[in-house]
């Protein structure tokens, strides 16, 4: 339970950041060239969306870089804010009833803040069970007290699921700061940076390969944009980059490859799951906050399932 120190930057982080900025510069140039070349209406729309995404990436990278550079506190505040925004987008789309007001207040103002206080305190024992155990056993009782039994199981499951996905899973990203891997020069923020980099790179590459070569959709009823071509091309490229960046991790090259593969697969699963929920509720994006990207939840969906698995793999194999 030691408090985190700031500021926090090291040579490995600096090199990773320089690499990301380099990628963005290349992306911006490619976007500008494409904007000149696009002739058809659909082509122009695609390029406009691409350039909006790239602009938003600059902002997101800047915010993330500042958060990481300030060490623990900055990252925790950033992910707490993302959890809050994701949870509000999620709850907006679900069908809770008038009687659920109290339970929702608990979710937003008690469980979500406490979860991040626990991350800050580095109190792993309670952090890992607060929502799966304590929220799980208290929220349905509170909901039953309100007296409305219509779709009861669905409503209580919805609030629990929202908390698990948007708060519990997302909080695993800054929780990486708890893990001290011996003899690793990247420090605690290095692990976090690697996770976010690989997960987001995978999103971008699957999108790019899908746009370029996509033909056969993987799950057409869920998301017509996710194709086998995009999935395979994106995954292979991401794993290749993730392996090449092994020097930025505590892992040897082969393990770095395996970790990247886990992050990409869990990222894909997270994205597909959130798409299925959106599809069921009849919307395309969760929100309008980030230009070209939809809502916050559309951007963090690839981290939802990847962060906890990545965390526990490192904790199991690398933290004594």
């Amino acid at each position: 339970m030691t408090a985190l120190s700031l500021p926090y930057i090291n040579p490995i982080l600096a090199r990773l950041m320089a690499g990301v900025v380099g990628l963005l510069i290349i992306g911006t140039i490619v976007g500008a060239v494409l904007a000149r070349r696009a002739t058809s209406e659909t082509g122009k729309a695609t390029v406009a969306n691409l350039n909006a995404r790239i602009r938003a990436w600059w902002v997101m990278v800047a915010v993330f870089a500042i958060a990481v550079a300030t060490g623990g506190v900055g990252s925790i505040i950033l992910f707490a804010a993302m959890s809050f925004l994701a949870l509000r987008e999620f709850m907006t789309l679900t069908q809770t009833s008038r009687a659920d007001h109290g339970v929702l207040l608990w979710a937003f103002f008690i469980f979500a803040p406490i979860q991040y206080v626990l991350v800050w305190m580095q109190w792993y024992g309670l952090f890992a069970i607060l929502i799966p155990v304590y929220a799980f056993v208290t929220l349905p009782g509170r909901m039953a007290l309100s007296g409305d039994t219509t779709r009861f199981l669905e409503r209580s499951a919805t609030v629990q699921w929202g908390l698990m996905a948007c708060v519990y899973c997302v909080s695993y990203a800054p929780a990486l700061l708890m893990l001290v891997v011996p003899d690793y020069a990247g420090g605690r923020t290095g692990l976090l940076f690697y996770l976010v980099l690989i997960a987001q790179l995978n999103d971008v590459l699957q999108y790019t390969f899908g746009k370029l070569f996509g033909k056969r959709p993987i799950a057409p009823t869920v998301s017509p944009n996710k194709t086998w071509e995009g999935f395979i091309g994106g995954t292979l490229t991401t794993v290749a980059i993730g392996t090449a960046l092994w020097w930025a991790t505590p892992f040897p090259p082969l393990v770095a490859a395996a970790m990247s593969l886990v992050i990409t697969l869990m990222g894909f699963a997270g994205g597909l799951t959130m798409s299925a929920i959106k599809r069921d509720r009849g919307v395309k994006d969760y929100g309008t906050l980030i230009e070209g990207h939809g809502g916050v939840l559309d951007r963090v969906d690839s981290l939802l399932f990847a962060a906890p698995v990545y965390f526990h793999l490192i904790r199991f194999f690398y933290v004594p």
Partner: protein
Amino acid sequence: MIERALARLARMIAGASVRWTVPPGAPEVQRVYFGNHTSHLDFILIWSALPPAARVHTRPIAGADYWGRGRMRRYLATKVFHAVLIERAAKSAPSTARESIDAIADAMGSGTSIIVFPEGTRSRDGTLLPFKSGLYHLCQRKPALELVPVYLDNMTRILPKGEVLPVPMLSRVVFGAPLHLEPGEEKPAFLGRMRDALLALRDA
């Protein structure tokens, strides 16, 4: 100053995105913005969603029985948002209703726009209640008024009637095309048309 900060706060709490189905008209035209009423944040939300030029001369109409009671509420309603406080017609005699319309018409003068909730009270479950007739009587006195429907989406869930703390989910403020009282239009037909125009924005 204070009203801007509060308006911004209300919009943050309610995560409000604003949509105009037609571009907002010239700010100096006198309008009645009429919306569906489900929460205490409603008038602040509509007010904050207006273009700044229109905002400065737009006043909400609020029930004196609620907003006139208690120092804090009274201060917020009259000093901060310059609300016109009226006695609610449902609970009082027809003569009071007429006085209320007089009070509103006086307060509007020749340049002030207003925000009203023609249901007269907050809806408990979000369904749109029947409209009170005040809107009709006001338009008879001032036929040139532009009537702008404003649909507030999801406020029932954010701050339902009877709750004190809002759940910070996302909401939408949708402005519709301006309408007028047609010459010779009867009261039920007019109120029905206004209600339909507001309902149509729900799916816009």
